[in-house]
């Protein structure tokens, strides 16, 4: 177990933004699920086995009589399809790891993916343990949030409306940090521009998959130009 304590201690500060965000969107999920008549144990079970923000929000609607498993599968696939592309950036990093990589693949949420791809490993920390610590800490925040929401969400002492902006702010901060590194600015602009246009054309519910496909097409079209400025996923 030696080395894990250091890894978790070093990883913790990087995960604080996710802690804030996950606690509260986790609470929101727990409340929604409890309103359907599911106890806190069900919320914990789902957050442990599924672990997907928007996926679990959507899934709350599946628990009605007559809903087919095909529909469950199809709708889940639609809302999570963007994750298909995340692993591409982590192939080299994860394929070096041992059996822990299966848990890390399971835990590839938007937030964890962003942290794993953009955090520099501090000196003196084992890379595998550090990355594992980030993944495990993030999921624990999600489970704790769901549990609070499932048990006592309606009794929260303050108005938490808008707290999910923490996630938006996290991605903006990572975006700005990337910008400072002066590498990969073109793909960053492509990501924003293409998804903004796709949002206008396809609407908020359907723009993610077209965005991802057009982004990939544009990235390949500009490969020659971008090869010159390519940096590492880190």
């Amino acid at each position: 177990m030696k080395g894990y304590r250091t890894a978790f201690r070093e990883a913790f500060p990087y995960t604080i933004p996710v802690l804030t965000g996950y606690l509260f969107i986790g609470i929101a999920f727990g409340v929604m699920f409890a309103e359907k008549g599911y106890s806190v144990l069900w919320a914990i079970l789902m957050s442990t086995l599924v672990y997907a923000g928007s996926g679990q929000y959507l899934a709350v609607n599946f628990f009605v009589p007559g809903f087919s498993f095909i529909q469950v599968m199809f709708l889940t696939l639609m809302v999570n399809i963007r994750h298909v592309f995340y692993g591409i950036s982590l192939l080299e990093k994860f394929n070096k790891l041992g059996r822990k990589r299966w848990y890390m693949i399971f835990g590839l949420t938007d937030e964890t993916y962003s942290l794993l791809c953009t955090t520099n490993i501090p000196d003196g920390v084992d890379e595998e343990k550090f990355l594992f610590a980030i993944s495990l800490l993030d999921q624990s925040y999600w489970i704790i949030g769901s549990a609070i929401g499932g048990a006592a969400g309606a009794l929260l002492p303050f108005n938490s409306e808008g707290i999910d902006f923490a996630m938006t702010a996290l991605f903006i901060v990572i975006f700005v940090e990337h910008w400072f590194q002066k590498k990969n600015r073109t793909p960053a602009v492509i990501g924003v521009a293409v998804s903004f246009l796709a949002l206008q054309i396809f609407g908020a519910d359907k723009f993610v998959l077209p965005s991802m496909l057009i982004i990939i097409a544009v990235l390949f079209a500009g490969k020659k130009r971008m090869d010159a400025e390519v940096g590492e996923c880190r």
Partner: protein
Amino acid sequence: MPVSAGTSFLIIIVVAVTTFATRVVPFFVFPKGKEIPEAVQYLGKVLTPAVIGMLVVYCLKNTPVMSRPYGIPELISVGAVVGLHVWKRNNLLSIGVGTVLYMFLIQAVFV
């Protein structure tokens, strides 16, 4: 509970397996020890900044721009996060102040 415990459990399992399937695809296509083609390596490198850009848009996708408050709280808060971060480069400060500002704006100013 609107459906039985057994059905509920099965629904959770189906959602869990489907979600995991989306995340594991690239690792099945390129398992340990298999050489990753140069084009895929390139994509892996340029995709992260592009995805983070997309996630910013994704987070703001439901902002109402054609009706009150016309996305003004979002605009101010995003501007504050960017400005603070360029100035101080402190993650927690940028995220903390931005979030509290946004909550204040939508709960107390633009109601």
